[in-house]
């Protein structure tokens, strides 16, 4: 009996640790968010602190889907990127430093999502390689400058993983072209984003296009 309960305790601890991947003890304080709930979110290219230059766009091109599926209008990331470049802001750092009022005037966005890519890519261990993606996010209201939400997401995948979740979804022509350049970190980014945006109690709340919108307020 003693052994059994010890095993159960171990099991409980293990599941708590697992949930910890998506659920931190302290829920996020959403009062600023509720005071200025955004409809539209402008996602700027991330600052890239990783050693992988391809991380900037490898990661940026995984953010639209989770945020839009939560119920927000997400501006077309590449069009925004090109528009900003054409208007004198050639890098992510410069885009992220643009005055919020100016960004609001040009795009009409309610909020800007500032991303900071901490890790992107593989590091080698004794017998295998591990692909890691780590990112922090800050959602800022363009009118008040208030921080509405912030979060952290990370994911890792060992060399044994299939990493083909996405492979099934994209067309043959693209698969061929992408396999040449594609890095697994791009796919691991989607797992990191699940931890970042969908985490219970700390994730990004549902937006106005979601049927669950009001429930989360």
């Amino acid at each position, binding site marked *: 009996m003693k052994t059994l309960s010890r095993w159960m305790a171990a099991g409980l601890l293990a599941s708590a640790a697992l949930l910890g991947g998506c659920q931190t003890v302290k829920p996020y304080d959403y009062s600023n968010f509720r005071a200025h709930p955004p409809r*539209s979110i402008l996602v700027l290219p991330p600052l890239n602190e990783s050693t992988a230059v391809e991380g900037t766009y490898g990661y940026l091109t995984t953010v639209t889907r989770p945020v*839009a599926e939560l119920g927000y*209008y997400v501006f077309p990331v*590449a069009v925004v990127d090109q528009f900003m470049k054409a208007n004198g802001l050639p890098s992510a750092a410069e885009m992220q430093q643009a005055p919020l009022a100016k960004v609001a005037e*040009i795009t*009409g966005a309610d909020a800007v999502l500032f991303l900071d890519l901490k890790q992107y890519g593989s590091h080698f261990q004794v017998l295998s390689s591990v692909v890691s993606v780590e990112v922090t996010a800050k959602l800022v209201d363009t009118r008040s400058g208030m921080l509405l939400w912030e979060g952290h997401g990370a994911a890792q995948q060992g060399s044994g993983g299939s990493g083909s979740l996405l492979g099934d979804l994209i067309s043959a022509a693209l698969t061929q072209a992408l396999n040449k350049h594609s890095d697994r970190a791009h796919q691991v980014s989607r797992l990191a984003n699940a931890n970042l945006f*969908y985490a219970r109690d700390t994730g990004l709340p549902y937006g106005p296009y*979601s049927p669950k919108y009001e429930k989360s307020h």
Partner: protein
Amino acid sequence: MMRLCAVLCSTALLAACAAPAARYAWGSYEEVIYASYASREDVPAEKQVEILEKDYQQARAANQHMPPGWHAHLGYLYYQLGRGDQARQELVTEKNEFPESAVFVNRLLANVKSP
């Protein structure tokens, strides 16, 4: 056994942060953009347009909506290819489907003036 545990554990992890059910027909939208940065020489704008148009036909057949930004992005590709009429049409569709885009799309439309 260890492997089975690893699989189960990652499933549990994913389940703990369940994603909402898909609302939009994503097709290859994000992958096309990724390719446009990562391997432009293999996937030129014409090819990107072709892939997106195909996605659109499939979505229409299944009566699904394209995600926010999708029509504006396709419009932007048409614009790059000098197909002004189609560019305008896609930008207007974006604005009609997502009024939040109006300020930005109007700015883009001003660049795609009639010849």
